[in-house]
């Protein structure tokens, strides 16, 4: 739950944020990677389609929902990065009937 602040460590892990390669420190969350990448949004909300970025960074607010390695509606702040991780925007409500990776 409590981890070292990511900027205290060198950016060594390469992930893809919306298809663009970004280097982030090991142990950072996928949500932190999105913020480091300077993305305009991590998701569009299910009800109104409003753009959102990570907010609470501690698993409470659900504003950082993203598609991580093909899995929809993942709380990106709760997932540590891994080399090659694909973090993509969650566009609206997920299709619950579609089988997907990682579930």
């Amino acid at each position, binding site marked *: 739950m409590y981890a070292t602040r990511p900027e205290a460590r060198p950016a060594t892990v390469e992930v893809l944020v919306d298809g663009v390669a970004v280097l982030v420190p090991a142990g950072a969350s996928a949500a932190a990677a999105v913020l480091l990448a300077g993305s305009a949004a991590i998701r569009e909300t299910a009800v109104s389609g409003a753009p959102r970025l990570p907010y609470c960074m501690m698993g409470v607010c659900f504003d950082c929902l993203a598609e991580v390695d093909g899995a929809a509606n993942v709380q990106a702040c709760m997932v540590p990065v891994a080399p090659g991780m694909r973090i993509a925007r969650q566009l*609206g*409500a997920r299709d*619950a009937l579609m*089988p997907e990776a990682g579930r």
Partner: protein
Amino acid sequence: MSAPESFQAIIVGGGLVGSAIAWGLAREGLRCVLLDEGDIAFRASRGNFGLVWAQSKGMGAPHYQRWTRYSANAWPELARELADAVGADVGLHQPGGVHLCLSDKEMADRADRMAQLAREAGNSLPFHYRMIEAAELREMLPALGPSVVGASFTPYDGHVDPLRLLHALHRAFTGAGGVYVPNAKVERSDAAPRDFRVFAADRMFEAPRVVLAAGLGNAALAPEFGLSAPVRPQQGQVLVTERVAPIFTMPTTSVRQTMQGSLLLGDSVAEVGYDISQKPAVMAEIARRAVLSFPFIARLNMVRAWSALRIMPKDGVAIYDQSEEYPGAFTANCHSGVTLAGAHARLLAPMIAAGQLDGMMDPFSARRFDVRDAA
């Protein structure tokens, strides 16, 4: 204590039952005050599942079946008038609904219950239902699991957003000139025929009518007005999934999709007194039946869960009563504040405004319990 504040009706209870009656009275032109206890109250209205459900209500009590049907019929008009009054969309969707059966025995039992309801309905308001076998049901509801053997269907059922409903009723009530008083637990009251005083929130309210719609609180309040309200808490729990794209064309008794996309899973029953703690065993059973019904639910994230207390009269049938000792005092108790909101706002409120319940309400009197206890 300040000077008495005079109204034409005092409504005790700011949940769905009290608010629907309050809105109905305000719409009839009565100057009303609505007293709401506060956040320490067991607020069933903020924990319920949101079904407008006529199917399976009133077994052995045809008057209750009929009242529920009247309410289901009144619902579209209630939704329309709330939209007109305050621009609220309470999300009423009433395409009919199904109760899923997960075994041949459940299906047979359900068929018996539905047949009995149809017999008891008689001819004045016939009860139309169908028992639907799995093959046809699969065309109505995608993603149904292999364990589902069938369902009962009635065309009267539907669902709403219960929080939007509560909010809309409050706004419509105050918009029509009603006075809403929060943190107003009734501390004391003085009853006389068509002359009531209620002390709450360090204020004194007086009116020729008082409506007790305080849910579980009615049990203690009613005797002050020459009435009785034998109700007990019955716990129900709800699980909530993440929001997903629209899947279901209609609600079921135990799984429904909200207008925002979440799935609500529920329909548990536990007799645990005034206990709103959540029980893992109950949550597991809700989840188990939901996944048997729709296997894809196993892949969804759960984001919230809660429990709440239904207001359950002794025999499960709603209580509506008027005081013989103190005319002008009324009670309303039921465990179906959403379903019955249509009837409360559009049928019950006009009776209360007129000062007397209609004869059709006689079987709902709590005096039915006195007879039974004496026998």
